[in-house]
C-alpha cells in the first residue's frame, strides 16, 4: 500500500454505502487489468464514457482504456499536477480541459521514456492500439484530445464516432428529424464495427452484441430503479457516494460485473431503507447536485455538507435519466439501431415536458422533476473552469428555476384540487474550481461558501415555517 502513502494524498473518504467503498479497489484493478491485457496481447482502445459504444467494444473483445477515468484518478490522488505541467510545457494552454491535458502530459511522457512515467498512479495508463474519439454535439476535447495525442503516437489509429442529437427547438419536434439522426448514428456505429474488425482481425459476433445490449439495457434499468430508492427519507445514499458508484455505470456497461454491482447496491440500499439508516440520520436539508462534474480531489466536500445536516439524494451528473422502456425506442432486432435510439432517447427525453411549459427548456425540466420527486430544499452546482461541456448554461438554468421557485408566497393547486399558499424559494450555490486541477481550489473558501449557503437554507426554512 505504499502508493496510498505518497505525499499529498489524503486518507480515504468516509462513504455511506459499502458499495461505494468497494469502488476504489475496483478501479485500481481495472487500470491494472488494462496493463496486464496489453502484456497478454489483447487490443486496447482509448475510449470515452457515455459514447454509446460500450457494448460494441466489449463484443469485439477490445479492452477499453477510459482516459477520462485515469485523469480523474490522478486528480483524486492529487497527482495530476506534474502531467498538467508537462502538457503546458508542450504548448497546451492550462485553460483547456484538464482531463485531456493530464492525459496528453502522461502520454507524451510515456512515449518519450518508452515506459510508464515514474510512480505513475496505479501503475499508469497502458499504451493503446487504437483511439476512439467522439464527435458528439458536446465536448470539443473528445473530438480533439486523441488527435493531439497522435502527435506523440502517430502509429495509433483513430476512429472518431459522430454522435449528434438535435438541440431543443420551439418549432421542430424530435420526430421531424429523428430519421436522419438515427440513420447517421447507425452508420457511424457500423463504421466503428468495421474499424474494430480491421484493427482486431476478427469479425463482429452480432448475437453476442445483442446479448450485451440486452445486458446493458438491463443494467441501465436496474441503475435507474436503484437510484430511485434514494428518494427515501433519510436517503440511504448521497451524491458523494454516487461519484463512486458511477464507475460501473459508465465504465462497465455491458458487463456482468457491472450488472452485479448494482444488484448488490440495490440490495444494500433496500436494507438501509428498511433499517431507516441514512447518510445522516437527521436530514435538515435535501439538496440537488444540479450540474457539473465534481472536483475529484475534494469529494470530502460532500462529507462536509453532511456534517451540516445536508444530503444529496439526487444529482444530474452520472445518472441514467429514465428506464429504457420510457425512452420510446422502436422495436428492432438490430443491436446497432437499439444503441442509436437509446442515444437519441437519452438526450431528448425531457423535450416534450419542456414544450408544455413555455419558456422552459429540457435541462430545467429535469431539475424541476428532481426537485419535486426528491423533496429538494436547495440546488448546488459546480463550475469547473476547464470544462465548457458540462459547465456552460448552469447560471441560466438557475435563473430559470428562480422564476418558478420564487421567494414569495404563491398560490398553487394542491393534490386535493384546492388552492393553497406555498413558499417555494429554492436557494442555490455554484461552487467554482476544477475537475482535477487542484491549483484552482481553496478548501477554506469552498467551505466558507458552503457555510453561507447552509445559513441561507436555515433562513429560508425558518421563513417557510412562519
Amino acid at each position: 500500500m505504499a502508493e496510498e502513502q505518497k505525499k499529498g494524498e489524503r486518507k480515504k473518504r468516509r462513504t455511506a454505502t459499502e458499495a461505494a467503498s468497494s469502488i476504489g479497489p475496483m478501479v485500481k484493478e481495472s487500470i491494472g487489468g488494462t496493463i496486464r491485457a496489453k502484456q497478454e496481447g489483447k487490443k486496447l482502445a482509448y475510449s470515452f464514457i457515455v459514447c454509446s459504444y460500450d457494448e460494441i467494444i466489449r463484443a469485439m473483445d477490445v479492452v477499453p482504456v477510459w482516459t477520462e477515468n485515469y485523469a480523474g484518478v490522478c486528480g483524486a490522488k492529487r497527482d495530476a499536477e506534474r502531467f498538467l505541467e508537462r502538457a503546458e510545457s508542450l504548448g497546451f494552454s492550462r485553460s483547456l480541459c484538464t482531463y485531456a491535458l493530464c492525459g496528453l502530459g502522461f502520454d507524451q511522457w510515456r512515449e518519450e521514456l518508452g515506459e510508464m512515467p515514474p510512480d505513475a498512479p496505479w501503475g499508469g495508463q497502458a499504451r493503446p492500439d487504437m483511439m476512439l474519439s467522439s464527435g458528439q454535439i458536446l465536448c470539443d476535447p473528445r473530438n480533439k484530445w486523441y488527435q493531439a495525442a497522435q502527435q506523440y503516437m502517430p502509429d495509433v489509429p483513430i476512429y472518431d464516432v459522430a454522435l449528434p442529437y438535435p438541440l431543443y427547438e420551439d418549432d421542430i419536434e424530435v420526430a421531424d428529424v429523428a430519421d436522419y439522426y438515427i440513420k447517421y448514428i447507425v452508420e457511424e456505429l457500423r463504421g466503428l464495427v468495421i474499424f474494430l474488425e480491421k484493427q482486431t482481425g476478427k469479425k463482429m459476433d452480432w448475437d453476442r452484441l445483442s446479448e450485451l445490449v440486452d445486458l446493458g439495457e438491463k443494467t441501465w434499468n436496474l441503475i435507474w430503479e436503484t437510484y430511485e430508492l434514494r428518494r427515501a427519507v433519510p436517503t440511504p445514499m448521497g451524491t458523494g457516494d454516487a461519484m463512486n458508484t458511477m464507475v460501473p455505470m459508465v465504465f462497465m456497461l455491458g458487463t456482468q460485473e457491472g450488472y452485479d454491482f448494482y444488484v448488490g447496491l440495490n440490495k444494500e440500499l433496500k436494507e438501509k431503507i428498511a433499517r431507516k439508516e441514512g447518510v445522516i440520520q437527521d436530514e435538515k436539508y435535501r439538496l440537488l447536485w444540479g450540474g457539473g462534474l465534481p472536483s475529484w480531489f475534494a469529494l470530502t466536500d460532500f462529507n462536509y455538507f453532511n456534517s451540516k445536516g445536508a444530503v444529496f439524494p439526487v444529482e444530474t451528473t452520472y445518472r441514467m435519466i429514465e428506464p429504457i422502456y420510457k425512452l420510446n425506442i422502436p422495436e428492432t432486432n438490430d443491436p446497432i439501431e437499439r444503441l442509436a435510439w437509446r442515444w437519441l432517447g437519452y438526450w431528448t427525453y425531457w423535450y416534450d415536458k419542456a414544450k408544455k411549459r413555455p419558456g422552459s427548456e429540457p435541462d430545467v425540466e429535469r431539475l424541476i422533476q428532481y426537485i419535486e420527486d426528491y423533496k429538494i430544499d436547495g440546488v448546488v452546482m459546480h463550475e469547473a473552469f476547464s470544462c465548457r461541456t458540462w459547465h456552460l448554461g448552469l447560471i441560466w438554468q438557475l435563473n430559470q428555476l428562480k422564476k418558478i421557485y420564487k421567494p414569495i408566497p404563491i398560490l398553487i393547486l394542491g393534490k386535493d384540487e384546492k388552492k393553497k399558499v406555498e413558499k417555494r424559494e429554492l436557494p442555490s450555490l455554484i461552487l467554482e474550481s476544477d475537475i482535477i486541477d487542484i491549483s484552482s481550489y481553496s478548501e477554506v473558501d469552498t467551505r466558507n461558501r458552503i457555510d453561507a449557503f447552509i445559513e441561507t437554507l436555515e433562513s429560508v426554512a425558518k421563513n417557510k415555517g412562519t
Partner: protein
Amino acid sequence: MNEQNSDILSKVERYYQEYGLRARELKNEGNKVIAYLCSLVPAEIITAAGLVPFRIRGDVHEPITKGDTNLETIACPFVRSCFDLSVKGRYDFCDGLIIPHACDSMARTYSTWKYSLGLPYSHFINVPHTLRQSSMEFFKAELNTFRKSVGRYAGKDISDDDLAEAIHLYNENRDKAKALYELRKSDPPLITGTELSKILTVGMSLPIAESNELFDVVLEELRQRKESPLQKAPRIMVDGACVDNVDFIKLVEDSGANVVVDTLCIGTRDYWPHTDVRGDPVDALAHRYLDKINCPRTYREKVGDTFQEDAESRFGDIGSLSKEFRVDGVILYIYKYCDPFGFEVPARKAYLDSLKMPVLYLEDEYSAGTIGRLRTRIQAFFEMIG
C-alpha cells in the same frame, strides 16, 4: 451606396465603428434581420429566404458586464463578448438568431442565447464533426431542416433557384475579397492589415449585394493607390480563430511589421472557399461549410503514416499561403478557453517549425487591455526574425 470612391474608406470606417448601422436601417425599412455567429452558418440560405443576414461581432473595448449574469466566465471570451453586447441591446434590431454547432462555447449556450434575447426566431444548425460521406448526408439533411425552418419564418418556400442566386452572389463576394488580398502581395503591401480587417468585417454586416458593391468601390479606390501606406517590414501571417476587432492586427503593424495574410475566420478561412455552382445547391453548401472551411472543430482523418504527413494535410493551407504571400513569420493568436484551436497549438507549431517558419504563439482574452500587454512579446519576435 452611391458615394464617391474617395469616401469609401470613410464609409467602411463608419460601418466598422457603428457596426450594424446598415442592418438597423434595413430593419427600420421593414426588413427582417437574422443575426448569426461564426463562419459555419450558410448565410446563403438566410439571403435566399429574403432575410438580411447579419454576423454578430464582439467588442474588445466593451467590458463584459450584463452578459456575465447569465453566461459563465469559462466560455470563450469572444462568445462572451458577443453575448454581452447582444443582451445589452447593441443588436436589438435583429429578429432572429442562428447559432451553429461550431464549438462547446456556442453549442452549450444556445439555450442561454435563445431565452435571454427572446427573439421571434432562432435556430441551431448541427454541424457534424467528421467528413465521412455519412456526415455529409447528415449535414445536407440538417441544412434542409434549416431551409424549411427559416423559410417558414420568412413566409417563403426557398427554391433551388433562390439558393443558386444567393450562392452566386456570395461567390462573387469571395472573388472580390480574394482580389483585396492580391493587394497585399507587393512589398510593402498596398493595403494595411488593419484596413483589410475592417473591410472584411464590415462586409459581413451587410446584405450580400451591398457587400459586393462596397468591395467593388473599395477595390477601385485601392487599385488607384500610387504609394503604399506602409514601409517595408517583416511580412506576418496571423493564424487563429475569429478576429473581428482590428486592435490586435493594428498592434502587430504598430510594432513594426506588415500583416500580409491570415488564416482567420474573418479572413481567408471564410472568405476564400467558394461554393460549387454545379448540382444540388444544398449539397454544394454542405460541402463548402463542412469540408472547405478548414476549422479545427472539424476532425480530419489522419493522412499518411507520420505526423508530418498528417500535419501537411491539416495545415497545408498555412504553408501555401505563407509561400504565396512571402511570409517571414507567423503569429498564432488563440483565445483562452478555445478548445478546438487550443488542442492544435503544439501541432501547428510543429508544422511551422518543419517549414522553418518562425512562429509566435499568443494566448489572449479578447480584451483591449490584454491585447496591449502583448506588445513586448510581439516586438521581441520581430527583433528575432529581423
